[in-house]
Structures are given as structure tokens and as C-alpha cells.
């Protein structure tokens, strides 16, 4: 009998038969993992099993390769975001990207901590810049970190102004030359410098979106990035999006 206990955040829930549910969680030590929750569709458990909920999970299966069954205890609900238009869009985008980007059962303990910090930040005011940094970190986790520390051409650390759409490496203003039109302008938001303007954020998300689309192409099977991510990107570009609906 296989058994482990871990903490995780719920990414998705799907009804299974009359009363059970199949959930997908992102756990601290076991990565993205699926399992059945008996009674998961019940009135008692349905409010607990909402995406973004932090759960204490015990997983049991006869063999390691089986889907297995979870027993769940709530640690923290994030249903407070239901009335927050932008926060809810952020939660959907994070859950959808974790679902498509991370391989099943591959631990990412450091990234789990970063993701939990972002989930926690979603109920506050200044999380869009943190979301952008989280996407950069997600790229690192799937094996394609952006290198924005030095110029890919000259090795200089000064006046970095562009990002190569091929390599994800920074290019200095002096080295860009005739390639300027083909390079992404490097926003300060990606360097974590200064306050993040809406324009900076838009440029940053365009860059991370480009590399996420490319690196996840196989897993997406020709489809674009999840619509939840596109919707969040659109909302972040509209000033009205930063208000809450009460």
C-alpha cells in the first residue's frame, strides 16, 4: 500500500460519478498530482474543493502508478477572491498554467513556495508585478529561464535594452544594431527594477507569453496558451481592471 501526506493547492476538480470528484493538486513534495476524493461532490466537500484552496492531503493507492485516492482537510480557502474580478482572473491563470506547464508527479518544492506566495498575494493590491516574476520563474522550472544578467553579444552588464526572441537572453542597446526591429524591448519589470507601469507589465507579459507558448507547444498540442492567461493579460492592460466588484 502506497501512502503519503503533503500540503497542496487545488488546481482543478472534476465530478466523478454520483458523489466522487477527481482533483488535481500542486503539492510541495510530490508536484502536480491527481487523485479521487470520495464524497468530493457532496455538499460538505464541494465548498472546500474550489481551485486555489490550500489542502492537507493524504494520498493512498495500492501501487504507485495508480491514480489513488485523496483524503483532504482544508487549510486555507481562497473563495474570498470570488468577488474580486482581477484577483479571480489571476487565480484562474495561475491554476491553468500550472496545469499545462508542470509534468505530473515531478516535485518543484521551491516553485511551490513561490506559487503559494503568489496565491496569497492575489487578495492584495500589488500582485501583477509578482505575477510577471512568477511566469519568469515558471519558465525556469520548465527548463527555459530568461538570462537578463548580461548582453548575449558583448557580455556587458550595462545598458541592457532588449531580449532576443530566440534565446531569451538580454541584448545591450549598443549591440542590437540592425536587429532592433526583431528584438523585444526589455521592460524594467522583468529586471525587478522600479515601479511597474501598465506598459511595462504588458511588455513583460508579451515576452513571457512568447516563451511560454514556444516551450509549452508540445504540451499544448498546437493550441494557444490557456484562455485564462489571455483574459488576465487583457484585464491587466485595462486600468478599470484594478477595481474590485463588491
Amino acid at each position, binding site marked *: 500500500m502506497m501512502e503519503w501526506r503533503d500540503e497542496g493547492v487545488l*488546481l*482543478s476538480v472534476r465530478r466523478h460519478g*454520483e458523489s466522487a470528484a477527481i482533483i488535481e493538486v500542486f503539492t510541495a513534495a510530490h508536484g502536480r498530482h491527481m487523485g479521487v476524493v470520495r464524497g468530493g461532490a457532496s455538499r460538505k466537500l464541494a*465548498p*472546500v474543493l*474550489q*481551485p*486555489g484552496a490550500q489542502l492537507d492531503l493524504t494520498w493512498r493507492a495500492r501501487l504507485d502508478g495508480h491514480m489513488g485516492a485523496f483524503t483532504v482537510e*482544508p487549510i*486555507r*480557502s*481562497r*473563495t*474570498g477572491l*470570488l*468577488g474580486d*474580478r482581477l484577483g*479571480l*482572473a489571476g*487565480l*484562474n*491563470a495561475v*491554476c*491553468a498554467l500550472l*496545469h499545462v506547464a508542470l509534468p505530473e508527479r515531478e516535485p518543484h518544492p521551491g516553485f511551490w513556495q513561490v506559487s503559494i506566495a503568489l496565491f496569497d498575494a492575489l487578495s492584495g493590491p500589488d500582485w501583477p508585478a509578482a505575477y510577471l516574476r512568477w511566469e519568469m520563474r515558471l519558465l525556469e522550472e520548465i527548463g527555459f529561464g530568461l538570462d537578463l544578467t548580461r548582453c548575449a553579444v558583448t557580455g556587458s552588464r550595462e545598458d541592457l535594452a532588449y531580449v532576443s526572441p530566440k534565446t531569451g537572453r538580454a541584448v545591450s542597446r549598443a549591440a542590437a544594431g540592425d536587429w532592433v526591429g526583431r528584438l523585444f524591448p526589455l521592460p524594467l519589470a522583468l529586471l525587478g527594477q522600479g515601479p511597474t507601469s501598465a506598459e511595462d507589465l504588458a511588455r513583460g507579459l508579451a515576452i513571457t507569453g512568447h516563451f511560454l507558448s514556444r516551450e509549452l507547444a508540445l504540451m499544448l498540442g498546437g*493550441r494557444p496558451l*490557456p*484562455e*485564462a492567461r489571455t*483574459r488576465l493579460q487583457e484585464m491587466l492592460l485595462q486600468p478599470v481592471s484594478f477595481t474590485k*466588484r*463588491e
Partner: protein
Amino acid sequence: MTQAPGDIERLIELMARLPGLGPRSARRAVLMMLKKRGAVMAPLAQVMAEVAASARDCVRCGNITGADLCDICRDERRATGELCVVEDVADLWALERAGAFRGRYHVLGGVLSALDSVGPDDLRIPQLARRVRDEGIAEVILALNATVDGQTTAHYIADVLAPSGVQVTSLAQGVPIGGELDYLDDGTIGAALRARRRF
């Protein structure tokens, strides 16, 4: 009875696909119908055939009906200027059972779902925007489930309807009648506190 067992097995298989029934309960239901063929099985088969032939979606609201327009859309007394948006027909029926709403409905046919790839074009949201424009709607009540997908859809619809200037409201969230605080989840208690009112 040379063919009957095979047909009966097929009937049991089909019945077992219905919600609330498994193979065992489907077998019991079929056995009961066979014992009361004249009183239960034949009329049931006849009505099912009739409904299968006549049932369709109301062209205006998406409710299930036997004509182009459902009874609610045909009833002029329900043209109150209030439009209640629900996820599916089961929710419409639940609201009708409660008898608390006297306006008209709009059935979306689902909710936005990031993981199931259900986007705005898969739902009856463009038709909703058209109805708001053409039917002189004063208030749209979003009666969607208090789930992440349900509320994501509610926010999306509010955005779509914002340019029309129509008043958009949503159902209250909080302590259900007969509910005990000790048994409520954190999210429900938080929503109830945020929606508190003068007593």
C-alpha cells in the same frame, strides 16, 4: 422470450447511465416496470418518445420547451424588465420552484472553464447582450454558482454588459437557512460577513 433477455439487458444498461442509478438500481427499476407494463412501462415509453420528438431549446432564453418559445417567454406578465441569468435549465427550474422571481430567464448552457477550454463563444453570452439591448432590460441578475468558474463567468458577463449601462446584480452569498456557523467553510463565513446588513 428468445430475444427479451438481450433487450432487457440493453434497457438496464441504458437506465444505469441515468444520474442516481447504478447497474443494481437500474435492474430493480426495469424489473418493476416489467411487472407493471401496462400501468407504468407503456405510458412511460410513450411519453418519452413524445418528449424526445418535441423537446427543444427556447429560441429566446434556452429553456427546454415543446415550442419555439417557452411558457415563461410567452407570458407577457413576466416582461418585468428583470432578466435572471442561470448556468443551465436545472437552475432555472430550481428558481421557478422557489417562486420568488417573476421576471424572465437566460440560460447560458454552462460556465467559462479554463481547464475544460470552455470560452465565451461556447456559451449564450452574445445572445444575452442582444436581449439586453433589444428587450428593454433594466436589471440583469447573475444567478450563477458560487464557484470559481461560476463567478469568473459572472465577472466576464458584467464586463460584456458594462457598455449597455444595464444594472447588473448577483445573488447574495452567505449563511443558508438552517445553516449552523460551526459547520460552514471559511469562504462562506467570509462572504456572509462581507454581505452583512443592518438588523
